[in-house]
């Protein structure tokens, strides 16, 4: 039977924990909003890029580029986009469960985020590189990652590149998703923003006939890496928003549980206190009766 002091101590410690989880919940929700806003800020860029893509690909009909070359998929590269920190629910374990499905010998991992890299190291998979990205991902960070996987592909070290990341469907639902990145198949429009909708839009050609400098195929060739960079950037933002919203939900649950625990402990504490008082009263009256 714990003493009242023990229970009081427990209540205090649970209260402290609840305070921390509550604070983390608030921080995560504001960071999630930021990531969502950043994804929306990419919208004008995506729109313009789609327009350029549409016009350019129309101008260069049978265009080929090394990044579009289809090869037999012997070796593949998986870009694993995870979080840096834990305490975000099942997010990372869902990702690693998917990552387990890839064949050990023919898969090379490129990781963005520490948790993914830890998984790869722990399971003795092949790790080609590890990148970090901040809470507010920068385009420069996305460009570095995208450049690295493009180089792997162009050098022939891998025959295809896929991205494994957490798709932001809504604040409550995030799903690990597998997206082929390279070789670039049919050119589709990109869409910015985290609506959980279809991320690609059809390309529509504008009515204007453009001149190209230095030539449609050259422009398209230069556009392709930018197109991939932007895609990786959007994926990073999406993964970040997923991480933060997942953390927000996990921390909300933790806070609720702590509150429930405090309630139960307080009840137990009061019961014990009352029992003690009754016992003392009994003792006093018995003593008095014995004396009287």
């Amino acid at each position, binding site marked *: 039977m714990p003493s009242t002091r023990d229970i009081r101590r427990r209540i205090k410690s649970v209260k402290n924990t609840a305070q921390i989880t509550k604070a983390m919940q608030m921080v995560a929700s504001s960071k999630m909003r930021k990531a969502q806003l*950043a994804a929306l*800020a*990419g919208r*004008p*860029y995506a729109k*313009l*890029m789609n*327009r*350029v893509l549409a*016009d*350019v690909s129309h101008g260069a009909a049978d265009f080929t580029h090394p990044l579009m070359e289809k090869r037999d998929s012997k070796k593949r590269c998986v870009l694993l986009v995870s979080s840096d920190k834990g305490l975000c629910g099942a997010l990372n374990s869902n990702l690693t469960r998917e990552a387990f499905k890839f064949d050990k010998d023919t898969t090379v991992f490129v990781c963005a985020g520490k948790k993914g890299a830890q998984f790869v190291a722990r399971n003795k998979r092949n790790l080609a590189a590890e990148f970090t990205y901040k809470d507010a991902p*920068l*385009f*420069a960070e*996305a*460009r*570095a990652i995208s*450049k*690295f996987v493009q*180089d792997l592909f162009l050098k022939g070290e891998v025959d295809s590149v896929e991205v494994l990341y957490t798709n932001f469907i809504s604040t409550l639902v995030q799903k690990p998703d597998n997206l082929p990145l390279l070789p670039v198949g049919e050119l589709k429009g990109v869409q910015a923003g985290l609506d959980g909708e279809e991320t690609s839009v059809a390309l529509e050609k504008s009515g*204007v*006939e*453009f*001149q*190209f*400098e*230095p030539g*449609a195929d*050259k*422009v398209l060739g*230069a*556009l392709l890496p*930018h197109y991939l*960079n*932007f895609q990786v*950037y959007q994926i990073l933002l999406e993964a970040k928003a997923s991480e933060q919203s997942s953390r927000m939900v996990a921390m909300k649950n933790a806070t609720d549980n702590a509150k429930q625990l405090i309630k139960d402990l307080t009840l137990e504490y009061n019961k014990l206190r009352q029992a003690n008082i009754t016992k003392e009263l009994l003792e006093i009256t018995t003593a008095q009766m014995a004396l009287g």
Partner: protein
Amino acid sequence: MATLKLEIVTPEAKIYSEDVDMVTLPGVEGEMGIFPMHVPLMTQLAAGEVSVRKDGQDFFLAVGEGFVEITGDQVSILTDMAIKAENIDEAKAEEARKRAETRLTEKLDDEEVANVNAALAHSLAQLKVKRRGR
């Protein structure tokens, strides 16, 4: 007089969107000035300086590599980086340039050289814009 609608967007934000009289920008095949009613043109943008004339006044932006779409009444610039002259931190850009230059003297593989060169082009573009007219 007809005006051009100039739009400059990066993946992170829309930097600029206004009606202007003339735009001068660094294309990969040389500098070009664009007036309203320009023939529709699409071209690659090199890192450098974009100068904008509006109501008889010129002002400048530093841009990174990217693409330009020109229609008769609109110029849309799609780039990695775009900073207005007044927002450029000269000391920071200078420091970035020095860092990039020392990195170039070290032994690097091709990929790193490309990255450093891009960074160098960015900081040089910023410095050029900031130091003009001195």
